[in-house]
């Protein structure tokens, strides 16, 4: 089933706000989770909104992406709340939530997920700059929306979208209950929504919308996007191999890292309650430091920087959703996600796994088959590297 919402007053933001307000008024949703500004600040965060008159600060589509809502969904669905929640999520937020549900960190029974063709994101500094350009952010938001959905773009005016977005291979909703098909749409006139599940159908039916159809150019645009982004990924992959192809260059790549662990805090799939890097496992005895200094001639502190990043790479090797939050959060401007996306997207091929692709697809490291990877067992193997 495909429905359509008529755009009001040439404002897509306003139209979507009314759409959410409608859900709350009719009782189709008890609360909606939508990115929203706090007071006059340009920064947006996922906001759980229960009152239909509190939607005017929401920014459903825009370049602000400072929190991946996947873990927030986990907080909201950890146990049953007995109410219906509608969540408006970016594709990488859905992927993160899907991975978290596989890790038993949330459940989607009581949630209706509305996913949209992705509006992409800006880096933090570029966002400051972008948000500061005019007096009223809403005009800039509308301009952003009108620009990013008409053809594949990697920048809007002077602002390039984040690298993670430039190489994202799934900028459209997968595993959503409702997919909002914005790419190639005549957004001044209407917004098309497709119900992908029974829950989605029920929601759209309750909203009493007119019938719609997928924008004609959407499939062609998605194909164009895929081609462009595959090329962009390959370029980034080569760049990363060049910059981190040896332990020595990896050392250089992370040399500005201050072990603040921001990348871990914002990572939607780094879910451990107690990370090993916060435990006594890495609280070495003073003599250990002296022995290292003795062994290598010097030891720089804090240590375990590359150890931390490589361990995280192995831990989230199959589940990294490529949202780019780690780069956005890095105070030392290390392009963490460039490396993580490039390494994990290649590594998980061994398990033919794609995070967020399928709810029913088990996590590769939680299952096994009796007869597999037999070529890596034993001495004398010369497996290709």
């Amino acid at each position, binding site marked *: 089933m495909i429905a359509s919402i008529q755009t009001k007053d040439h404002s897509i933001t306003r139209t979507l706000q009314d759409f959410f307000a409608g859900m709350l008024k009719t009782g189709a949703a008890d609360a909606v989770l939508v990115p929203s500004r706090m007071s006059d600040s340009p920064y947006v965060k996922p906001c759980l909104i229960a009152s239909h008159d509190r939607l005017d600060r929401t920014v459903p589509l825009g370049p602000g992406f400072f929190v991946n809502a996947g873990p927030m969904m986990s907080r909201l669905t950890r146990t049953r709340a007995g109410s219906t929640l509608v969540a408006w999520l970016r594709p990488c937020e859905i992927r993160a939530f899907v991975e978290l549900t596989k890790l038993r960190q949330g459940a989607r029974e009581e949630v209706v997920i509305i996913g949209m063709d992705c509006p992409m994101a800006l880096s933090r500094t570029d966002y400051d700059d972008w948000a500061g350009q005019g007096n009223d952010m809403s005009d800039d938001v509308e301009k952003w929306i009108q620009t990013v959905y008409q053809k594949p773009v990697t920048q809007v005016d002077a602002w390039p979208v984040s690298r993670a977005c430039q190489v994202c291979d799934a900028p459209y909703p997968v595993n959503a209950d409702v997919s909002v098909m914005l790419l190639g749409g005549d957004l001044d006139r209407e917004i098309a929504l497709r119900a992908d599940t029974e829950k989605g159908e029920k929601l759209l039916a309750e909203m009493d919308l007119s019938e719609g159809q997928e924008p004609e150019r959407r499939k062609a645009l998605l194909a164009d996007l895929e081609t462009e982004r595959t090329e962009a990924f390959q370029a980034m992959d080569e760049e990363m191999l060049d910059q*981190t192809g040896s332990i020595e260059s990896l050392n250089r790549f992370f040399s500005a890292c201050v072990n603040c662990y921001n990348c871990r805090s914002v990572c939607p799939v780094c879910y451990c309650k107690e990370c090993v890097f916060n435990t006594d496992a890495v609280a070495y005895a003073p003599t250990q430091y002296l022995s290292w200094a003795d062994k*290598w001639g010097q030891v720089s502190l804090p240590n375990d920087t590359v150890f931390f990043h490589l361990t995280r790479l192995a831990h989230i090797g199959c589940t990294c959703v490529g949202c780019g939050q780690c780069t956005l959060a890095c105070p030392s401007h290390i392009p963490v996600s460039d490396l993580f996306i490039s390494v994990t997207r290649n590594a998980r091929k*061994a398990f033919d796994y794609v995070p967020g692709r399928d709810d029913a697809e088990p996590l590769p490291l939680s299952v096994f088959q009796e007869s597999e990877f037999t070529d890596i067992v034993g001495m004398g*193997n010369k497996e290709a590297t």
Partner: protein
Amino acid sequence: MTQTVMEPEQDSPPKTPSLNPDAFEPVAVAFVCNWCTYTAADLAGTSRLTYPDNVRLVRVMCTGMVDPQYVIKAFLEGADAVLVSGCHPGDCHYINGNYKARRRIKLLKQILPRFGIDAQRLRLTWIGASDGIEFAQTMTRFVEEIRGLGPCQARLQQVI
């Protein structure tokens, strides 16, 4: 307390690690499971079998508990190779820990070569509790193979 003055050893190794292949003495870390490979190592010992002392055994309860971080840490601390060895498929004391280990090793073999750590430096074997001879032979072959690969770059400097 009396102080013992130690005579310096005749040919003490150089303080700074060397990449000189002639002076290369490999260091290998082997994570062996309590129920099979460690028991085999014990059997090798009681049977008076010999194998190179380049291998440092770390006994773990199951290969299924060898988190990737242990392997990574071993490499970053200067190990030239890492071996994970447990029970044969079907023999795991914890039913399927070794199958899970195999997937983790596979993942690490996908990741580490990307940073210049050759996939052949990370090995997985199954050695049963009664295979003392096989244990000694495997260790000998393991050390030979690492010798062939040469020193791992990570041993040269502190990996931050």
